[in-house]
């Protein structure tokens, strides 16, 4: 164990996984010479050479499309999209090919590729550096999605994704790249996909969150100490989803607030609410609430705090349920 920032944990994961398996390669814009604009891939080009840590042309569909071909040639490519909103040009390759190619071969071939990107707001950046695009990915068949909220999980989930035979998209909370530190297991460390984490135990209300909404939910839980015993469930993996953990927590508390940074309409939080409405209706003592971003472009940064789910909005939602 050693203490690391979230992005250091990711970097370490790369060093371990590229050493471990020489079919793993990293590709993307500025991942090589510069070591990534957040330095997530620092040192890889020097250590493993420019063929295993490749500075690509500036073309996200080209990156993902050629990664499909690399898989067919036996590689396990890890593609970096430089920012959330710059991943959109790769959606076509993702939806029409990444999620379907194995199926198209009757299960004969594997496409063990990983797509990772920094996501989310709160970093005082210009437009289009702040999106939370997980819904586009989760809704796409054939693709798995994980979002870490701690340095240890950032390392462990990335390792799981790299080793997974199915394509996995990892969104990394860029807000916490350098500000969050935590204990991270040294060497090989894998956090299995599909296992949620009870970040905080509680009995009155469950906050369901992932990524950067987890620490926020924990803050809200602190804020509510004395008023209510709040459980915080960190989903970690959106697909496969740990339904058992979700239903167990809902059964225990009977009250659920879902916290999601992305715009609410048809966002992933709706899926959580829908699962509860189907499978936990008798457990629910109150409505299922969502605290989310809004159905608007992520705003200019001077007012981004009004967009982002806040401790106030979360505690308000919890209090609503307690009063219900």
């Amino acid at each position, binding site marked *: 164990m050693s203490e690391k920032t979230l992005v250091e944990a990711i970097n370490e994961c790369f060093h371990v996984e590229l050493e471990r398996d020489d079919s793993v390669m990293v590709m993307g814009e500025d991942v090589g010479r510069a070591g990534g604009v957040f330095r997530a891939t620092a040192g890889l080009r020097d250590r493993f050479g420019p063929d295993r840590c490749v500075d690509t042309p500036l073309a996200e569909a080209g990156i993902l*499309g050629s990664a499909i071909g690399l898989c067919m040639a036996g590689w396990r490519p890890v593609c970096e999209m430089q920012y959330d909103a710059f991943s959109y040009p790769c959606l076509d390759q993702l939806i029409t090919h990444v999620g379907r190619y194995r199926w198209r071969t009757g299960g004969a071939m594997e496409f063990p590729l990983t797509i990772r990107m920094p996501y989310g707001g709160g970093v005082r950046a210009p437009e289009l550096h702040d999106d939370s695009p997980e819904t586009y990915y989760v809704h796409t068949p*054939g693709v798995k999605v994980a979002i870490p909220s701690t340095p240890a999980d950032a390392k462990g989930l990335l390792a799981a994704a790299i080793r997974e035979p199915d394509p996995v998209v990892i969104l990394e909370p860029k807000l916490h790249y350098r500000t969050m530190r935590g204990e991270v297991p040294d060497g090989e460390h894998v956090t299995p996909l599909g296992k949620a984490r009870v970040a905080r135990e509680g009995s009155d209300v469950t906050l369901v969150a992932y990524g950067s909404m987890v620490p926020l939910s924990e803050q809200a839980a602190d804020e509510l100490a004395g008023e209510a015993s709040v459980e915080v469930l960190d989903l970690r993996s959106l697909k496969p989803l740990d339904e058992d953990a979700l239903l167990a927590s809902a059964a225990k508390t009977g009250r659920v607030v879902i916290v999601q940074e992305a715009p609410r309409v048809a966002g992933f939080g709706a899926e959580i609410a829908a699962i509860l409405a189907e499978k936990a209706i008798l457990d629910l003592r109150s409505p299922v609430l969502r605290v989310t971003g809004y159905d608007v472009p992520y705003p200019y940064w001077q007012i981004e705090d009004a967009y982002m789910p806040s401790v106030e909005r979360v505690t308000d939602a919890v209090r609503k349920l307690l009063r219900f």
Partner: protein
Amino acid sequence: MAQVLPDERELRRVIGDGDTIADGEVEGLGEQELVDLYRSMVVLRTYDERSVVYHRQGRIGTYAIFWNHEAMQAGSVYALDRDDWVFPSYRESAIGLLRGMPVETVLSWWRGHPSGWWNPLDYNVASICVPIGTHVPHAVGLAWGKKLRGEKTVAVAYFGDGATSEGAFHEGANFAGVMKAPAILFCNNNQWAISTPVSAQTAAETLADKAVGYGMPGVRVDGGDVLAVYEATREAVERARAGDGPTFIEALSYRAAPHATADDPSAYIDMERVEEERQNECLGRYARYLWRIGVLTDELEEQIRGEALQAMKDGIAAAEAEPSADPELVFRHAYVNPPPSLSEDLAELKRVLGNE
């Protein structure tokens, strides 16, 4: 300053017209090879013509006709080694036949039956790509990836004139140039993208001109001349294998049939022009050449056609004899490790269908 024009803006030709234009020949192609090539073309032509009939008979679904594209497909594949990869579009749906893929596999694909899905590793033929141009980066990635592994494999992506307008084509072509990928970008310029003529597709004078922007040679070849196609592809393969990177081949041809069985081109194409092109179609041109140089005989012709027709008869019989597909297949193959919710869905569907 280096020459940046496409290698040739004039069309390469080998086959003459039996009159004013003299026949040429291709080094290294003996009688056996010439007949092999002929056989490939007949296999494709027979597949195509029978498929249109099968479609009319309701035995296969909508079908993308490739009549008069056989020279481009057969000529180029013949220039490859068995280890080289082929990335077809829907227009090259039967190209796997040239790699030993059973006829019924291709027919099953057009029948919407799961036995039409093949393992690309069995033939080094990728899955049929339906969304235009999107497989260009796949071929480039494969070629690049093989090169990184020290293998000598070449990959060919087939696409149409319309495909050159797509961003995916551009990004793939640019990657090919940068990575010096041993790839061939084979453009079947049949001058139409459904109803859109190539003049409305691009203002470039030739499609091969696009190669300049990717720093790769652009070659133009008569797509109705199987020997010219073979030769141009062989040169591209040699370049690729020598480590000199990708080539863009524009094979000029004409779509002398509807885009697909559902299409009525008389609404937008001058049918007289089509008739002209049909008179000059690629298989006839090659057959006449072989007759002129004395390689083809009535007997041989009949035998080759007969075998191809028999293969189709056997193929459609085999495709139709496939057991009807198990609906459970809906849930298979998308994931190596399916999410638990998918298994639940399957169980639920079985319950509803009373199969549980």
